[in-house]
């Protein structure tokens, strides 16, 4: 795949890190990594994993092919065929994903799940805990053992924080794992609640950042009332990603999460960066007015943003009209909190050039390199 914007890019001498790359796992791939038994049996024999095991439902089918959705039976737009004629979806295995990364000059990919981002929509943790563990073992086999360009977060089932903590302990020492994925679809209560403290403690102890990532078809669990009145896929993307992260950011600040775990980095993925200035300003204002309700915080919320929070750029939105606006938005959000993400291979993905061509020359070479890759290397300890 190539495009004019891709060919015009001038970032080839930079280290490019996709801080939110997606594997495109199928539950059939994961099942062999589960222990035999009744849970394994039930999952293996379910007819619709997304609704029978997960509670994933989009308010409406996407009008066009959409990776990872129920309508992706023609999901071939950027799939590739091998010499035997078999089709490989991007993100289905390490070899296929490497080819696409090379095409975009992406040096490292921080891997997130796709369907399994719905892990916390599962009501019964007897299912979610072994599924998350099996997913992690699959990622090792299909990606981390394939190439050192891949790093992954450890997927955890949030309903059992103690077991999640054990899962973190199990994988933290392995080179390929560089963070902890706390999938926000169905994550209730939200981020700031103390029930997740074992997860935060384990992540902080192992110096692993937490990544927060929503999913559009998971909003049914997170925002049921909003889901009921959403009529389109486009709406669910906003609610499932952007609004979910905003909800969790406010929760984290109101419950003093960054003050309770001062060495824990939290990376908010797939909700862009333009909401960040608004949240910093508004939370500072609310904090000063209602500070008696924020007794855990020792400084302004915006200062915790600067110290503990990171935001990946995708989706940067329609910023082509005036490229200076994107640089301004990044400066308002906090230049040192921002890192590039492609979200490849989902259809909302941003090629490196889509970000870099609009930043080039505006933030200085060092900051531009940091945003495109070196900051992610540092935050994820690659």
């Amino acid at each position, binding site marked *: 795949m190539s495009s004019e914007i891709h060919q015009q890019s001038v970032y080839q001498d930079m280290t490019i890190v996709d801080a939110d790359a997606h594997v495109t796992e199928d539950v059939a791939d994961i099942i062999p990594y589960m222990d035999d038994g009744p849970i394994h049996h039930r999952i293996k024999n379910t007819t619709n994993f997304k609704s029978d095991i997960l509670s994933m439902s989009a308010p409406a089918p996407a009008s066009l092919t959409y990776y990872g959705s129920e309508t992706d039976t023609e999901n071939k737009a950027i799939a590739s065929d091998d010499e035997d004629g078999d089709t490989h979806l991007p993100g289905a295995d390490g070899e296929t994903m490497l080819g696409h990364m090379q095409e975009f000059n992406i040096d490292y990919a921080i891997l997130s799940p796709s369907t399994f981002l719905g892990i916390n929509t599962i009501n019964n943790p007897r299912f979610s805990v072994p599924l998350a563990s099996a997913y992690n073992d699959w990622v090792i086999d299909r990606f981390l053992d394939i190439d050192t360009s891949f790093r992954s977060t450890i997927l955890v089932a949030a309903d059992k924080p103690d077991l999640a903590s054990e899962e973190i302990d199990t994988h933290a020492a392995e080179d390929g794992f560089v963070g902890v994925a706390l999938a926000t679809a169905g994550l209730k209560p939200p981020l700031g609640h103390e029930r997740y403290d074992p997860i935060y403690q384990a992540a902080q102890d192992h110096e692993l950042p937490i990544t927060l990532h929503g999913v559009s078809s998971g909003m049914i669990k997170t925002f049921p009332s909003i889901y009921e009145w959403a009529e389109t896929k486009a709406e669910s993307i906003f609610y499932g990603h952007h609004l979910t992260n905003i909800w969790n950011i406010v929760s984290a600040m109101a419950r003093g999460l960054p003050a309770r775990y001062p060495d824990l980095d939290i990376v908010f993925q797939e909700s862009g960066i333009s909401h960040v200035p608004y949240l910093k300003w508004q939370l500072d204002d609310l*904090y*000063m*007015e*209602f*500070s*008696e309700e924020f*007794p855990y915080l020792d*400084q*302004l919320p915006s200062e915790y943003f600067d110290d503990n929070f990171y935001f990946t750029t995708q989706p940067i939105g329609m910023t082509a009209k005036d490229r200076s606006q994107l640089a301004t938005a990044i400066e308002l959000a906090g230049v040192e909190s921002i890192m590039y993400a492609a979200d490849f291979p989902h259809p909302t993905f941003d090629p490196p050039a889509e970000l870099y061509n609009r930043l080039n020359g505006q933030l200085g070479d060092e900051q531009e390199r940091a945003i495109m890759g070196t900051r992610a290397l540092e935050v994820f300890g690659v």
Partner: protein
Amino acid sequence: MTWHEVIESDKLDPGSRVIADIRGTEIAVFNIDHDYYALANYCVHAGGPLCEGPIEQSTTVADDGWDWEYDDRTAVLCPWHHWKFDIETGDSLDSELYSVPSYETKVENDMVYVKR
């Protein structure tokens, strides 16, 4: 700098305050358990009449990490947006970026003075 008479001490009950015009500046004198403190009646946030707001104890988290309890700081809340300033120091309770001017006080012959 000059000491200015503000009010007779027996006319300012504990927990109350009086606002005086001292050389063109509105300055409030607070009686906190018979200790006297003086702050400019001006909120650095938006210019509100800070010292006309309620007086409250500062809230903190108890040692158990759970309960909320009062600490030993007494604050005046700006009536406009509830920004809180330590009556003893003039410092914001919530951010080291903000403080309002505070003034020395003394009591002599039952008269409260402010130095400005």
